């Protein structure tokens, strides 16, 4: 028996709708996931429209090493390799890297610079000094505190150190002016050394929450620890979350005694 005409039309419409649905579903899913992943603030949206990506004639796609906060060790930075077109010019290259450091943090928890922070200008002087001028959003929106402010500075310094040959120190300005502190703690009047960290041969094979601990630089509280010289910077590493169990032995604490009984008298 022949199918009624209106049924044929209904089935055709349903088939077209199903086809369109299947066709558009992947991009719809992608958009939903993108929205979930990175909530875009008004300022970010404005910047995406207004600010053109930094590109130069010498841009070449490269593997860049960017330093964001570690998810496993609070207060530590972690290198992440990303594909990035990088200029041969040190100043442009530095701008591209810092822009990526702000815009491409893998997660909010790994962010070291506020999403709204903007690099207004960057110069590289002949002596290897990079002068980076940021918008007010950097000091006003970076989390206040020594650890967070120092990580903000160090993520820039390490990222430049790992990717821009010839840059040896960093000066941070806020809106063209020298600032006393970043957000009340970290000193911006100084030049920060730009340091290029490299991965140790074992680092990639180490278990998560690595147990390497700078045991050699601690000693019992009855004696002074060995001074940690700047040249042995590898000892200045975070023991990480697991280090409490595997780190260097710590001295047993003797109870405090009143001053009159056992305290050393001044000479």
């Amino acid at each position, binding site marked *: 028996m022949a199918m009624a005409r209106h049924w044929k039309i209904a089935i055709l419409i349903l088939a077209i709708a199903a086809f369109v649905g299947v066709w558009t579903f992947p991009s719809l899913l992608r958009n939903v996931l993108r929205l979930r992943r990175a909530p875009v603030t008004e300022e970010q949206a404005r910047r995406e429209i207004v600010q053109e990506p930094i590109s130069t004639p010498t841009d070449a796609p490269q593997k860049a090493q960017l330093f964001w906060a570690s998810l496993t060790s609070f207060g530590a930075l972690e290198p992440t390799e990303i594909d990035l077109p990088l200029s041969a010019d040190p100043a442009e290259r530095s701008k591209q890297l810092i822009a990526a450091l702000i815009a491409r943090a893998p997660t909010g928890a790994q962010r070291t610079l506020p999403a709204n922070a903007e690099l207004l200008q960057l110069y590289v002087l002949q002596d290897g000094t990079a002068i980076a001028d940021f918008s007010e959003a950097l000091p006003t929106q970076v989390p206040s505190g020594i650890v967070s402010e120092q990580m903000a500075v160090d993520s820039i310094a390490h990222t430049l150190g790992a990717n821009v040959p010839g840059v040896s120190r960093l000066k941070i300005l806020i809106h063209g002016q020298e600032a006393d502190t970043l957000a009340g703690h970290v000193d911006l009047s100084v030049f920060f050394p730009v340091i290029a960290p*490299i991965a140790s041969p074992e680092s990639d094979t180490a278990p998560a929450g690595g147990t390497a601990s*700078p045991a050699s630089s601690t000693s019992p509280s009855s004696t002074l620890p060995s001074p940690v010289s*700047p040249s042995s910077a590898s000892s200045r590493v975070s023991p990480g*979350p697991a280090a409490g169990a595997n780190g260097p032995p710590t001295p047993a604490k003797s109870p405090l005694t009143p001053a009159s009984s056992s305290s050393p008298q001044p*000479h």
Partner: protein
Amino acid sequence: MIPNSTPNSVPNAVPNGRELTVVLDPAHGGPDAGSRGAAGVVESEIVLNFARAIRQTLQGQGFRVLLTREGNQDPSFDDRSSMINGLRNAVFVTLHVSSTGPVGTVRTYSYGEIATPPVVSATGKPLPETRPGTTRSTAISRTGLIPWDRAQEAYLNASERLAQLTQIQLAQEFGGSPELSLPAAVRQLRTIAAPAIAVEISSVAVSGPAQLAQMTPRLADAVTHAIVDFQVANGGALTTPAAGRGGGPGVGAGPPLGGAH
């Protein structure tokens, strides 16, 4: 120049002759409240309570203790520095509460404009750094004067030792805290002409002030232990820092301060 005005503080008596003066600096104050937590925790108030408790414990050990502020004042960085820079045999401890970090952990810093944060691989393994940090050039000029703006440079090694001793104690008291102190470019420390450290407690993101308040006795105990250890390790007599490298075997008030250069 050395500021003429000093913030209000009441020098304490010197019990039992321990001649080391400890200057405790509750950071922020006045209009600068520091970090604020969602539960109403205000950094400037918490650190003042910490400072008062530490003062009590230190005084019990015979130390002379000064606070850079006794209430909700807001002395400048230089005002706070001026409280200690005229003293001999003194150490400086500035107290902070961060806005981030695992609650209940504590970190100690000594001054270092060295960009050497802990760096770990993706697996959490610490990475070495290829380039040495900047040289710690001495701030002592040929005239023997220390520029005010760089007063701490002559005490970097001593400060680092005090920071290490303090972090050892804190790590025992507060699980999850790092085993070692770290260098950081803490502005307040730069103009201190004495061994100086910053102690930062995590964090204002607690359920209420009581959660931080319960840390107070252990914090006071740890800081006091560290300062006792520091004094013992220096033989009780703190001396002038060695010119050139700063700190040397002993620490102390250092050469006379010059004007700002």
